[in-house]
């Protein structure tokens, strides 16, 4: 029971991060039917920029949490700008091209970002210093650390903020309209190009925070960390129903919990033959199962709707 509770806590933390990243995939897919495979690398960039700022401030004597906050506040605009430029330079010229073209371009952009990051930050694993208090708190036999609480609380706040934005604001109305019918939205006065830009910018801001969280949580950053993370978040988005915002949130949390439970029990279930290092397999197992049995995802209805 303790293991269960502990893995649940760990899974929710991991799932919160997946959800933030999955939202970036789902927002862009919802607006323009494109899978932005470079999104995971924007997450990596968020981690790297945060880390660079943290190193810069290492001798400053500022308290750790403040250093972390300044780091992420620098990473957010850097990622927003990157997301904006990716769309403008790589995707917009291909807006009316066959769908395979932007998909291949997306993979190209992903490789470009990874290679740039490798040139700037090297190929070694970089360690992310411990900036937050190492305190842990007991909950019902398990324990939750300070950073875990921060991750859960701040990602919940961001997701609530995003839901509000999409459902209740003028910008959100335009986003929802554009995702359903860009041509008619334009006729009603929506500047579809700006809405697409804003969508990339919002997704990238969430990615920046997720990148900071994941590297602070695991204490590590690497130029290709965005690849697997991106793939898992994409899985989460598909699990929830790609294009569906609540779906990305639910899918992210669910995938985090599934993975974490798998890691916790796999050794016991297989009599030690498989350990928690098989954790990554779960995400892709889930992806395959979803694609076979419910390709539109848990909350989705959109796949196949676009021409």
């Amino acid at each position: 029971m303790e293991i269960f509770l502990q893995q649940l806590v760990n899974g929710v933390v991991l799932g919160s991060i997946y959800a933030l990243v999955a939202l970036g995939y789902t927002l862009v897919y919802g607006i323009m039917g494109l899978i932005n495979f470079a999104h995971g690398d924007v997450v990596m960039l968020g981690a790297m920029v945060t880390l660079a700022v943290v190193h810069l401030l290492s001798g400053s004597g500022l308290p750790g949490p403040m250093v972390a906050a300044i780091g992420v506040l620098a990473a957010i605009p850097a990622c927003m700008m990157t997301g904006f430029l990716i769309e403008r330079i790589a995707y917009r010229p291909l807006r009316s091209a066959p769908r395979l073209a932007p998909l291949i371009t997306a993979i190209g952009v992903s490789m470009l970002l990874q290679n740039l990051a490798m040139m700037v930050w090297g190929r070694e694993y970089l360690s992310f210093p411990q900036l937050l208090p190492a305190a842990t708190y007991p909950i019902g036999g398990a324990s939750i650390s300070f950073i875990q609480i921060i991750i859960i609380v701040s990602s919940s706040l961001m997701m609530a903020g995003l839901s509000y934005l999409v459902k209740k604001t003028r910008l959100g109305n335009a986003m929802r309209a554009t995702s359903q019918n860009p041509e008619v939205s334009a006729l009603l006065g929506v500047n579809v190009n700006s809405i697409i830009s804003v969508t990339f910018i919002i997704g990238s801001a969430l990615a920046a925070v997720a990148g900071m969280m994941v590297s602070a949580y695991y204490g590590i950053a690497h130029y290709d960390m965005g690849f697997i993370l991106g793939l898992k978040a994409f899985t989460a988005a598909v699990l929830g129903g790609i294009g569906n915002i609540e779906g990305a949130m639910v899918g992210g949390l669910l995938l985090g919990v599934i993975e974490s439970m798998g890691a916790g029990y796999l050794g016991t279930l297989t009599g030690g033959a498989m350990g928690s290092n098989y954790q990554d397999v779960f995400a892709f197992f889930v992806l395959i199962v979803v694609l076979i049995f419910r390709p539109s995802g848990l909350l989705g209805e959109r796949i196949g709707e676009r021409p």
Partner: protein
Amino acid sequence: MNLLEISDLHVSYDGIKAVRGIDLSLEEGEIVSLIGANGAGKSTTLKAVCGITPVHSGSILFEGEDIRSIPPHMLVKRGISLVPEGRGLFGRSTVEENLKMGAYSRRDKGIADDLEKIYALFPRLLERRSQAAGTLSGGEQQMVSLGRALMARPRLLFLDEPSMGLAPIMVQKIFEIIRTVASTGMTILLVEQNAKIALSMSQRGYVMESGKITLSDASSALLENPQVKAAYLGQ
């Protein structure tokens, strides 16, 4: 000065010439029909004026100003609205959300009042205001599409086949409402395959065939024209 003046308009899709040099004009307050068979180029003409489909050559003057270089999202502010073929609703949004999107370009205080007016015009929609638009019947969807366009307070309204796919009784209902709207002095270009009903409520009409305007006359004259009778009125 004409409200809308199209001269020698050419539009093509990847080399397929859909509109081949048409002239068409609308005076303020007029209701004009544009009739023609499927594939004649009617919708393409409307889309070209609205800036959705690129114009190959020709001029489009709205209030005397060439609007070809104005992006589509800026045209609604100038007073041009389109009720698109097939209605173009936001199917997963509610009826009310659809109607409110019609006023997206407006910043004035009159939006709530106008919404009430739309509900007065279409009491059915008031009952269904919280329902997803995609779940409505064809006639109700057409009402939403029309209501949404009116929410922009247009000066020039394009209607692209409002009768398409509707039961005869619904067609009567929709056209009754179009008459009501027209009586407010709004300028309307009515595109229809149902030539009879379109000509019966417009002052003038154009007949389009294979991308060209082949006839243009008073609607009453077109209704009596033997060619029109044979080709479009089934007589």
